């Protein structure tokens, strides 16, 4: 039997940050990974947020293939999967730091990123054991977790166990911290990696114009195209409750539709992209603040705790933040000699006071926004024509003023849909962001009265 201070289960970003931090604090640490190699079991999580570069200095040492995404776009497709409206935008000067002004995501393969982080954990002194499944937890007579048991029957004891074993987290389940996720707390994502020549991508897209795209249509839930170093990922997800209850089609049927025809298929064909690898995995998407993230001798980090952004389920940064926090709490608890639930309770306080807690303070509003709009294909039979009509006034079909009248009258017919939409999905977010609506409206009214009407049209420079 082996005895450690900290046993980390799972070799993803959360596990590696926990193992690295614990080792740096002088704790005897082991990280257990079920894959043959680190990264084997990591799928379709590729976008590194600029805040990872802000918050973790060691990332400067990273030297793996990646692609800076400076643009994002949203494409509305009709029932024939043809594009009817598209918006595209670049990074904003509103961002407070340089990385966020420079790129939206830095897209990498998880294999490379996970191995880079595990390498840092190893350099810091953590023992890494791959090809080993933590198949159960060890508990003392009070139910406190005292380590894990491997699939080979080996007991690995630790004062603190950090479960970074992903969305399914059998460790959280066996430790008694959680029953299965509720059907509205977790999504299933299906995704295909496509390979394309980087030269062709550079020529057709523009090396400085890489853009991650979201496609919406009446035929499938919101679908992403994430540009990758050797091609791109195409994928989509839905809450498991919706899939299981037959809310729409089966997961693979949706993915088949995505690539079968229309605008997105032409994008794939134009790049002469070849499907290379199929992925499917669970991804937490919580409409509420996660709970039960610690217990006697155990803490949950990353997806195992449910820490994925409730708007678009980005989870790598939160896995890294929570992995580091958990290891810091483990070090303090071990030095105080209290690794019971009350000794580890501070972990929940720390993550709630961190960027993670701030994100989940609006979990319900973001998740409802996404569930009600992006993941509900029915909405787009209505929204896409409304968006498409936005520019009708500019059409050459008739005098523009007649087109404008027609456009406005069309919007007034749909006023009840638009108002319900704003009330259900937009207003809750405005309220949550604490915009003082009434005062803002008063101010706008005052500015309207004060605003001067511009006189005439100036055709020549004043001189």
């Amino acid at each position, binding site marked *: 039997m082996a005895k450690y201070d900290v046993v980390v289960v799972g070799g993803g970003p959360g596990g590696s940050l926990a193992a690295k931090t614990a080792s740096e604090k002088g704790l005897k640490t082991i990280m257990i*990974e*079920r*894959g*043959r190699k680190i*990264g*084997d*079991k*990591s*799928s*379709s999580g*590729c976008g590194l947020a600029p805040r990872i570069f802000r918050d973790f200095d060691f990332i400067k040492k990273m030297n793996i293939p990646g692609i800076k995404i400076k643009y994002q776009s949203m494409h509305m497709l009709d029932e024939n999967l043809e594009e009817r409206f598209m918006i595209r935008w670049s990074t904003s000067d509103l961002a407070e730091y340089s990385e966020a002004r420079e790129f939206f995501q830095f897209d990498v*393969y*998880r*294999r490379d990123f996970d191995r880079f982080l595990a390498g840092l954990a190893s350099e810091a002194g953590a023992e890494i054991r*791959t*090809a*080993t*499944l933590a*198949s159960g937890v060890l508990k003392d007579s009070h139910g406190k977790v005292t380590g894990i048991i*491997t*699939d*080979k029957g080996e007991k690995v004891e630790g004062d603190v166990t950090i479960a970074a074993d992903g*969305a*399914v987290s*059998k460790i959280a389940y066996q430790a008694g911290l959680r029953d*299965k*996720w509720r*059907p509205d707390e*977790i999504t*299933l994502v*299906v995704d*295909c*990696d496509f*390979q394309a020549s980087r030269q062709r991508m550079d020529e057709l897209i523009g090396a400085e114009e890489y853009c991650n795209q979201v496609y919406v249509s009446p035929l499938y839930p919101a679908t992403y195209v994430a540009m*990758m170093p*050797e091609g791109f990922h195409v994928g989509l997800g839905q809450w*498991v*409750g919706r*899939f*299981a*209850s*037959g809310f729409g089609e*089966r*997961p*693979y049927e949706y*993915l*088949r539709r995505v*690539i079968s025809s229309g605008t997105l*298929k032409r994008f*794939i*064909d134009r790049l002469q992209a*070849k*499907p*290379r*690898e*199929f*992925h*499917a*995995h*669970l991804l937490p998407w919580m409409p509420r603040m996660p709970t039960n993230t610690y217990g006697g001798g155990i803490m949950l980090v990353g997806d195992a705790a449910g820490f994925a952004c409730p708007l678009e389920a980005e989870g790598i940064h939160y896995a890294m933040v929570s992995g580091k926090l958990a290891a810091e709490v483990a070090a303090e608890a071990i030095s105080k000699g209290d690794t019971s639930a009350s000794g580890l309770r501070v972990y929940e306080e720390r993550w709630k006071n961190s960027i993670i807690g701030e994100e989940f303070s609006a979990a319900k509003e973001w998740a409802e926004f996404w569930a009600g709009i992006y993941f509900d294909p029915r909405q787009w039979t209505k929204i896409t024509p409304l968006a498409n009509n936005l520019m009708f006034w500019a059409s050459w079909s008739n005098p523009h003023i007649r087109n404008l009248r027609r456009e406005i009258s069309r919007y007034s017919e749909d006023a009840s849909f638009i108002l319900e939409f704003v009330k259900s999905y937009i207003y809750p977010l405005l309220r949550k962001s604490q915009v003082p609506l009434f005062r803002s409206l008063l101010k706008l009214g005052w500015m309207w009265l004060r605003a001067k009407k511009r006189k005439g049209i100036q055709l020549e420079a004043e001189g």
Partner: protein
Amino acid sequence: MVESESDLRKLVKRSGETGEFIRHNKALCTGCGRCVKICPMELWELKKSKAFISPEYVEKCVECGSCWLVCESNAIEFSYPRGGTGVIWEYG
């Protein structure tokens, strides 16, 4: 035929022998079909109002755990296959 129209699900690499890692207790199964509807590899089917998993799952399952998660009668037991075996994703 356009390549993207063939079954993408064949594009999964694997290593080693996983052995059995999903168990289904037919006595508990209510035949609700939730596992059938969610499985991305479509490995489950209903026969005489009980769910069955294809014996080929050991070579086809992508270890997502969805069937276990959505089973409301706890008839499905899922554990990850033993260390070092099963799905390998190189371009995740």
